[in-house]
């Protein structure tokens, strides 16, 4: 019996051996948050990435794709460990994902040192667009300050004279508040940074904003914190008295919880579900078909584009991923149909793109949803690219 088993397993090994050597797979590591209160964001990114793979027949350039999803738990140290595991033990060809700027900054060094190709599908710390840019690092999202800069421009258009800024105290929060302050022509009366991610009661900050006499409030709170902020804004009696302007605070994940409190609160975004291009229509329709009851967000759209970007590079290089320079050149071409319409990279591998004004409306099904109202800025490039030397 034992001998038979041994013989059988040897036969299996022999059979599997040559096959493995012939058939190369494209290995992609995907780091995001899949546990804790912000797991819904990670799930949306994974859903969209999986949908993109479905659309490609789960092959890139004829080669099967294997994706390893890793959970960073929204913690920089965990994110770094998981990234190192993907590089050293899984030996992945590409890494994608990252929601949080602080997690990305902690994980960046091992990726850059090992020359693994990275496609960031959300986080956009200003350092990565500037002095810490790298030939193997690409972004399908934005730099942190671009979206709030667009919001600042919109506030100028609305004739707002003074603003109070509130955001979380971590890499992205600081970038966001600096971003809105850089384009806003009126006076920034006050600014509050709150403990992130633990602080969820904003009563002290809201009272200060009210007492400051500012004409408007700008806020950046991604995920569940955005729900809490909008609810407390309404409960404190500020909604309707002080107009609120946002970035990354209202999306398809938070809207079902924010409900009426989000109506009439404008936001800036580079992708909205109703952008009129074929790829986007397909993405949104198939997402809603595959994941019943769910709607894709910009996090998902960026992850969908990340899968497409990787695919385009594999196709252009015919799967020869060892030639790093060729892969880099192929990725820089960004030869794919983005759900945003056109897609092109700046010299620092951050997209040059439009930013839209989005508003909350009731759609045909009577459900609250986001709608594009106007284009705030066209072909916007981040302000850090000149600091990027691409070595």
């Amino acid at each position, binding site marked *: 019996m034992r001998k038979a088993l041994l013989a059988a397993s040897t036969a299996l090994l022999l059979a599997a051996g040559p096959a493995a050597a012939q058939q190369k797979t494209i290995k992609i590591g995907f780091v995001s948050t899949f546990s804790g*209160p912000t797991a819904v964001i990670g799930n949306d990114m994974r859903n969209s990435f999986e949908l993109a793979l479905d659309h490609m027949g789960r092959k890139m350039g004829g080669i099967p794709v294997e994706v390893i999803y890793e959970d960073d738990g929204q913690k920089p140290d965990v994110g770094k460990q998981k990234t190192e595991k993907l590089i050293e033990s899984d030996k992945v060809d590409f890494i994608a994902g990252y929601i949080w700027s602080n997690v990305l900054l902690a994980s960046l060094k091992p990726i850059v040192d090992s020359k693994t190709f990275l496609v960031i599908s959300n986080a956009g710390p200003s350092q990565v667009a500037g002095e810490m840019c790298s030939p193997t690092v690409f972004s399908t999202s934005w730099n942190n300050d671009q979206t709030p800069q667009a919001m600042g421009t919109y506030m100028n258009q609305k004739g707002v004279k003074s603003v109070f800024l509130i955001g979380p105290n971590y890499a992205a929060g600081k970038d966001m508040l600096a971003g809105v302050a850089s384009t806003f022509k009126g006076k920034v009366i006050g600014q509050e*940074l709150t403990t992130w991610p633990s602080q969820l009661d904003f009563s002290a900050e809201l009272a200060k904003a009210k*007492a400051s006499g500012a004409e408007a409030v700008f806020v950046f709170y991604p995920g569940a914190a955005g729900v809490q902020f909008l609810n407390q804004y309404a409960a404190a009696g500020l909604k309707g008295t002080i107009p609120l302007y946002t970035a990354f605070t209202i999306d398809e994940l938070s809207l079902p*919880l924010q409900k009426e409190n989000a109506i009439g609160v404008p936001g800036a975004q580079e992708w909205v579900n109703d952008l009129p291009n074929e790829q986007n229509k397909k993405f949104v329709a198939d997402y809603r078909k595959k994941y019943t009851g769910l709607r894709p967000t910009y996090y998902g759209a960026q992850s969908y584009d990340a899968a497409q970007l990787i695919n385009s590079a594999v196709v252009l290089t015919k799967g020869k991923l060892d030639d790093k320079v060729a892969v880099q050149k192929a990725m820089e071409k960004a030869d794919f149909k983005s759900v945003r319409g056109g897609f092109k990279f700046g010299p620092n591998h951050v997209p040059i793109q439009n930013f839209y004004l989005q508003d909350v409306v009731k759609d045909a099904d009577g459900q609250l949803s986001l709608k594009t109202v106007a284009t705030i800025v066209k072909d916007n490039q981040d302000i850090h690219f000149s600091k990027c030397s691409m070595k």
Partner: protein
Amino acid sequence: MTLFIEQCLNGLQFGLLLFLLAAGLTLVFGIMDLVNLAHGSLYMIGAYFAATFAAWTGSFVLGAVLALVATLLVGMVVEVVAMRRLYGRDHIDHVLATFGLILFFDESVRLIWGPAGLSLPLPPWLSQPVQILPGVFYSGYRLAIIVVTLLVAGFLYVLVMRTRIGMLIRAGASNREMVGALGVNIKLLYTLVFGLGAALAGFAGLMQAPILTVQIGMGENIVILAFVITVIGGVGSIRGALVAAIFVGFIDTLGRAFFPDLLRMILSKEAAATAAPALSSMLIYLLMAIVLVVKPEGLFSAGQK
């Protein structure tokens, strides 16, 4: 000045809410000598129950009452099934077992309600801002929290100081063995006390739910503050928990509100903006350290062991 009044109310509201959480914790810790890390999970369960029942019944108040009863029952079941096996064991065993309970509750909630979280909408009569002084408006719901928690504090005072059960609870906090030796059904008392603690935690959770979202892990940060309050107030002392909770609420809120401005006078604007949130969240722990140095048994110690 109106800003100061408003921030004081915020501090009072937060402190009283923390009191609800800490009162249950200090009772369980003091009487049953049980370190219950899963207290925050009961807070979360209370919020989830309230959101579910309020959606079913269509009434916020009815949902809250049902949630309170349900959390009480969950607490008593947890005591009978899990906690009973831990009495008389080492504190390390308590920590391990109740940490396991946290994971159990988090995963159960994920299975039952999903990972996305719920919202508990307020009825219109509670969501209106109220004029407290001429020209000063304050969130009506936060005001309601202050009133209701003060009522609960009064109820607890009467329960603990004026009733037979309260007498047994106090006796249990001072000397557990003697109470048992005198023929009191200590098992039943423990189940009741644990259920009461759970209901208080659940009550805190459901009161906080409309302000925050109902989500997995919502109790984990706030339970740390409840432990700090238990230490400052003295283990087993309800009065200590009340005083310490109000202290902590005020320090946390006023620290967040005015500390950055103070810091801005000494430091540069950027340094102050970055350091202030970190430093003001440290103030509470500083208070705890000072209390531990000056009065290691807490401000109001329930009994000598």
